[in-house]
């Protein structure tokens, strides 16, 4: 074990954390918006719309992310004259744009399924009650369907967040220097994979650990009626055994 190398290289790897988080954060947030629309299209009574949404979801979930990234990053080069004509080439020549576009389309497909599940799990009675109060359309969606659906979808969405953090590593293949990219560069130069792997892997584990705990905390905050004690985020992060226990539904 080469501790000197570890000491030398950890600042470089830690310095690459923002790149990973920017990639994941921007694609998750844009992807989420896409996913809401796709989920709604999927559930709409319009056959064409729902089939289109299904096709998008199916295609992007059945193919590797790497193909999607290459298709956008390298594939756009084949249409360069066309893209230049419409002024789009400035975007497609940037590897950052291509990576975020591919990641966004990918997470949009996965998230749309999670959100669809959430929307479908909204109890019918809630919608009936809202209609009885005179809500309809967008108001009903904004006030009743969406909040309840989000609570249902949150655990699944937490998994998707972790998957996206892991997926950002593929951006390193198209020259973006996020954590994995930097790690590969150092490994290739020093030929000591274990040391770098420990640091880079540790960083990913730490990010994912904090994110899972954040999602759990959000779950509690959004459905406080299900939990006995109030908890702060810090107690959740550091004291596992003091995690709040869900109150037994039947007992209530």
């Amino acid at each position, binding site marked *: 074990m080469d501790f000197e190398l570890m000491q030398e290289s950890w600042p470089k790897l830690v310095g690459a954390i923002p790149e990973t988080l920017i990639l994941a954060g921007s694609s998750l947030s844009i992807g989420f918006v896409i996913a809401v629309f796709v989920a709604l299209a999927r559930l709409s009574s319009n056959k064409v719309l729902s089939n289109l949404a299904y096709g998008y979801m199916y295609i992007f979930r059945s193919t590797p992310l790497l193909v999607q990234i290459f298709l956008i990053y390298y594939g756009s080069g084949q249409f360069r004259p066309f893209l230049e004509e419409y002024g789009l080439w400035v975007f497609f020549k940037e590897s950052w744009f291509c990576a975020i576009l591919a990641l966004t389309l990918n997470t949009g497909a996965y998230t749309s399924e999670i959100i669809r599940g959430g929307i479908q799990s909204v109890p019918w009675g809630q919608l009936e009650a809202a209609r009885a109060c005179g809500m309809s359309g967008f108001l009903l969606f904004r006030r009743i369907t969406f909040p309840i659906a989000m609570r249902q979808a949150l655990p699944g969405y937490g998994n998707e967040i972790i998957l996206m953090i892991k997926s950002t590593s593929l951006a390193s293949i198209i020259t973006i220097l996020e954590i*994995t990219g930097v790690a590969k560069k150092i*490994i290739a130069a020093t030929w000591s994979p274990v040391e770098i792997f420990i640091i880079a*892997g540790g960083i990913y584990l730490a990010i994912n650990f904090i994110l899972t705990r954040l999602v759990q905390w959000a779950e509690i905050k959004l459905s406080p009626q299900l939990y006995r004690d109030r908890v702060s985020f810090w107690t959740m992060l550091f004291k596992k055994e003091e995690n709040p226990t869900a109150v037994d539904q039947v007992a209530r």
Partner: protein
Amino acid sequence: MDLSLLVYGDAGWGDEMLMGALMTIAVATCSYLLGIVFGAVFATMKLSHYYILRLIADAYTTIIRGIPELLVIYLVFFGGGAVLRSVAKGVFGYGEYIDLPIFVTGMLCIGISSGAYSTEVIRGAVQAVPVGQIEAARAVGMSKWLRFWRILVPQVARYALPGLGNVWQLTLKETSLISVIGLADIMRHSYIAMGSTKEPFTFFLTAFFLYLGLASISNRGFLRAETWSNRGVRVT
């Protein structure tokens, strides 16, 4: 887009893409099976009475599921050869330069990560078998091994099948990453073809549809296997 580039034979890249697809299928199948072996072993460890075994298995699934596969691939690709050489030198006294074949490296990497997901699926399936069944088997005097083969395995296989189907889809998609270290799979062949024809979109679109086809066909296969495994089970 020039589709004549995709003809089969010397003039086009059709045969290369097909060979790539076969390679993808081969490496996906091997690493999937390896993953199931890992999954069975680590699921047993997770359900064991010994704290240390549970700890090891927990560490395995947490670490592998928490870090990107690409990082694992780099670790095995750059580190596997060194380990192999030191073992060869220390244990067998073989000092020549040897390296892991790329197929084995890829199979190991994807197998390790697929194994972490299989572990959770198999553990869940084992826990889904009602305790009463094991007790009943014990009551009629079955030995430990007989209980395992006659009661546990058939039911675990049935419960685990949907989850293992998902793991297969994951594994199939993950194999695309091994092209990064040079295995001649679909991605690698598309990349080479792109280099010499300057038509990246054509080839990556072909790759896209090849993966889509593989995923759809195997998905259908798993659905049929599920129906088959549930025959005779009462639907409530």
